[in-house]
């Protein structure tokens, strides 16, 4: 027993010295444990008779979505119609309806939120109508259609888009943004379908010998799984200061055409599908090679000006667009100040039409018959068009 005493004392001392410590926090190799992020959360406020899931997108404030920019969402969340409208899901009451939303694992930065109600207009509108058909995985299904209700995080007084900033505290921990309100209202109902188009012009563009390539775009009506019925191209004169007088920025005496806009961008080579090339010169630096392109205004001005040559007060639909693509490549990493490139990189280029509602359409897309069947979409031959620059 005599020998037991020091033994027991040692035991007790060992336990007292190490027995009560809480385990240390030691992140494992799991990537999420080694990053610091926060969240943006708040409520959706919907005043609408439309019914459908609410989709909320998170954008980098420096890279906003169309029509202000060409940014793509960093993340999105879905608030289901059941959660949002509850017992009113089966009626057409205007609300307001509220439901919580959250965007998780948001790193420090400046963001803006946009969204829409992916409405099932067939509930209340006779054909043609749209069921809830948003699908983020395909460019032809990833944007709102006619009848969807737009929304976003906006300043309640000015209705200007609200910039949301995730900041960090003194220890470097990002601070969550809570209480953010994202509003949707029938007043922001999307008026048209997307500017789906086609062209019958040749694909080839010999940039070294041809200074300008012309493409004639006409609306492409699609039915079935991808349902787009554009009534034409929604054309609008520029009036940046909203004084009712069309702008003439280049001073050519003709009003400028503000919408739609055309982007011709290089596609990646050697990868399946049609993916933008973000590093065309393979130098490891991201870039965005575009060709200088725009609408030929003269045919449009005929529709936009009245008999006296004065601008019509409203935008108009036109049945076709003539696009001029110059043999001039630009690095558009900074869309505000694109940098001319010395040569036009040969390869495949896409043509994207961007209308004033922020809706876009791009050729080529997943309706290319070579791609469509594999992903369960209807193949449409015209949607396989790709500009081949030599």
């Amino acid at each position, binding site marked *: *027993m005599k020998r037991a005493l020091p033994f027991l004392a040692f035991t007790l001392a060992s336990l007292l010295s190490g027995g009560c410590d809480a385990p240390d*926090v*030691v992140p494992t190799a799991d990537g999420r444990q080694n990053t610091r992020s926060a969240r943006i959360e708040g409520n959706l406020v919907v005043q609408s008779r439309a019914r459908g899931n609410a989709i909320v997108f998170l954008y980098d404030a420096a890279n906003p979505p169309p029509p202000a920019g060409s940014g793509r969402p960093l993340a999105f969340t879905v608030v289901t119609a059941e959660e949002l409208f509850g017992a009113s899901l089966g009626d057409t009451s205007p609300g307001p309806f509220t439901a919580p939303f959250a965007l998780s694992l948001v790193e420090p930065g400046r963001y803006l939120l946009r969204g829409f109600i992916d409405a099932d207009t067939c509930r209340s509108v006779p054909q043609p109508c749209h069921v809830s058909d948003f699908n983020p995985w395909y460019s032809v299904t990833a944007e709102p259609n006619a009848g969807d209700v737009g929304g976003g995080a906006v300043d309640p007084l000015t209705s200007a888009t609200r910039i949301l900033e995730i900041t960090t505290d003194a220890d470097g921990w990002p601070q969550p943004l809570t209480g953010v309100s994202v509003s949707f209202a029938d007043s922001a109902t999307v008026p048209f379908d997307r500017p789906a188009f086609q062209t019958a012009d040749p694909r080839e563009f010999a940039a070294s010998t041809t200074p300008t390539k012309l493409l004639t775009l006409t609306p492409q009506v699609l039915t079935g799984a991808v349902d787009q019925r554009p009534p034409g191209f929604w054309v609008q004169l520029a009036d940046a200061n909203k004084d009712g007088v069309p702008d003439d920025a280049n001073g050519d005496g003709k009003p400028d055409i503000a919408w739609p806009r055309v982007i011709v961008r290089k596609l990646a080579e050697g990868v399946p599908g049609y993916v933008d090339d973000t590093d065309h010169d393979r130098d490891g630096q991201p870039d965005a090679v575009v060709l200088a392109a725009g609408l030929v205004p003269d045919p449009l001005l005929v529709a936009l000006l009245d008999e006296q040559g004065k601008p019509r007060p409203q935008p108009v639909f036109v049945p076709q667009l003539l696009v001029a693509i110059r043999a001039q490549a630009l690095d558009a990493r900074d869309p505000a100040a694109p940098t001319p490139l010395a040569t036009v990189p040969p390869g495949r280029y896409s043509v994207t039409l961007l209308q004033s509602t922020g809706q876009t359409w791009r050729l080529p897309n997943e309706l290319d018959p070579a791609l469509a069947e594999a992903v369960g979409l209807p193949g449409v031959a015209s949607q396989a068009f790709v500009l081949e620059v030599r």
Partner: protein
Amino acid sequence: MNPPTAFRRGALLALCLCATEALADARLEARRHFRNGMSLIEQKNFDEGIAELEAAYAIKPHPSVLYNIARAYQDAGRLDEALDAYKRYLASNPPDATNVQAQVTRLEATRQAAQAEAPEPGAQPGTAGSATGLPMPPPPPTSIQAQQQLATLMERLEKAVARAESMSAQPQAPQQPAATPGPTTVSSSGGGESGDTSGDQGLVPYEERVVTASRRAQSSLEAPNATTVITAEDIRLSGATTLPELLRRVPGADVMAMGVGSANVSLRGFNQRLANKVLVLVDGRTEYQDFLGLTVWAGLPIGLEEIDRIEVIRGPGSALYGANAMLGVINIITQAPGTGRRARFGAMAGGGNTVQGSFVSHGQNGGLRYRASAAYRQEDKWSRDYESGRPDFALQGPADPDLGQRGARANLSTVYTFQEGQAIGVSGGVHRYLTEIYPLGLLRNYYIDGLGAYAKADVELGAVKLKAFWNHLSGDAGPQYEAIGQRSLGIQVASNVFNGEALYARGFELAGEHQVNIGVEGRLKRVAFTYLDDLREEFHAAAFVQDDWRIVQPLRLIVSYRVDRHPLLDKGNPGIAQSPRLSAVFQPIEGHAFRASVATAFREPTFLESYTRLPVPVPGVNGVSLLTTGNRTLRPERLNALELGWRGESPRLGLDWDVALYQNTVKDLIALSPVQSLPAGESYDSGTGSYLLGRSMFTNEAAIYTARGVEAGINVSPIDGLGVKASAAYQHISSDLPDEGQCGTCSQTPAFRLFGGVTYRTRTDLEFGIEAAFTTSTTWVEREPSASDPTRVDLIANNLPAYTVVNARVGYTVVKDFVSVALQGSQLGGGHAEHPFGNRIERRVFANLTVTP
């Protein structure tokens, strides 16, 4: 540690080592004394021989030793001592007590007769009797009953002698133990692999015996597989506080501790999160959880203090045990009811806020024996993955984020013996526990807060044994941490398994000696799990036969065949899996067995692999999920194995060893496929309100893997006071993939594993044990959402450095047979991780108190 400190500590250790008479590995040392004793007795050196036997008995009591002491005294003509020894033997309540009591009665009659006919003073003892100097034979039985008892005893003795002779190639080797009528057949819980034979309770005292390799008791030398036995003494001296820690000593065992209660154990490679290729049994009852395909080690309803021994069969076991015994079988055998102390209280406390209390009680009332136990344990994690109060992740499930495991359990095991060879055992237990588990794919650390329960009945009717059990698990199983705002996964699980089996064993002579085992088995599984597409139910049936055929004296062939019917094995329809095995065991000289084996084994698809439909949230994109789906047309994972082995022992030197070389060819491994896009019409999951990035489905890999390895283990107790265990394993896994770099399974298997342990036990009051296990570095290929685009899943190679696990224990008996204390050091090798996503393991010290009033 500076040199003077090291010197002082070394001197202290040396002082302790030299302070008292010591004992080494008890079984080896007792065996050494026993063999020496029997040899001396054979040479008529009765006093010295009996002293050796007494020494063996003192080290490790074995009823058969008492019997042999009695026989030696009887042969020496010392009837008083013989009678005393027989009575000591009877006090151990042997099953043949009736026969031995008759023997005692006869000896007492002989003694009385001898006293009555005592010679005149000065006459030489024995001269009035036979010329051999032995006492007079007992008088003829006076009753029919006594005659029958004597006839039975003689028949048993003759059989035992013949059996012992057949086990030894050298007739002059100690045969006396073979005459032991010790307890050989009475079952504690019925099944042959269910702990019916304590490790040293066979015909030959201190012979290492196993029941798992052939589903019947046999010498480990006769086992057709590489076998490792971990005894209760090993457990006590090791310093290990969990079952997986103990298994590090098994050559070829991959033990991957993820958390204090979470470990994955495999044999001969192929370890992974949710290790699923080793069948774990507790007294012959499976602990494999079919819904996920894993063993929840912290959920086992038993504690270390209840274990009699652990038998580890390295290599395929499907020929006897069917599905999931692909790389081996770990059979945990608990103490037979009624074989321990009336009460044993244990308490442990230490690092990580560890608290444990346990109680075990054995008892007997007539033919009824029981063991009852209850325990509680809780322990903090080694490390936490996330801090509290983070703005992005929040704790789910258990309220205490530090808690690694917690459990309260109770067991009752009873056996009622009607007569020799006829017994019924009923046992049951319940375990309410919380622990960590680590699932597959993008899933990380989970908790399981569940209730485990079982009930089991064993019936032994001579050659026929019946067994039925029910296993239950229900509770919550979900991620410990989830991104705030992200959709939570469902967590409910309820699993029930009903199993019934019948075994028949018979020996006969036909061109040699045959020992045939035949069994049939049926199993119903019902699983309700929120990860599955519905409540699922499967019924499995199986039959097996094994013939252990001794063709000639040193050579035995063991032929085994099992067929399992599984409801999905034929492309989603009921199909069968066949598992043949052929083994040869050659024992040219005593104490050496050479074995060769060719076998197949399989693992059946789990419920998770067959029926899952689980949209897993993609981190950082709350509107997106990745769909994981089961596959009902999976083929079972298959293994073809070749093995050569040499098992040997040198009792006089206190030495055992085992060497094994093997080649395993594994195909049809089941794994998650790369993410495949879904058709546009299937992209939205209305159940979760999320868009499905794609689908990852359980599929059979096309690759064929070849694992080659060598394992060696040695136990030595050369001198009193020192026991040494060491093992080494080398393994190389290759595949037929064109690029070796694509073989994640190959890089995840450590090439070398080394184990060394030293134990020292003084005869009076001190015990020391220290062991170290070294594992070489590995590279784990795991799925990880891309940092730049979370909707893309990348395969990331994570390097895991080599590590060494060191455990130690110092024990002190304060009051002999009453109070003992111990200090245990766990993971003394310092901080390391055993999987890229596992806890950062830190050293802990525990204090133990054991009271046996």
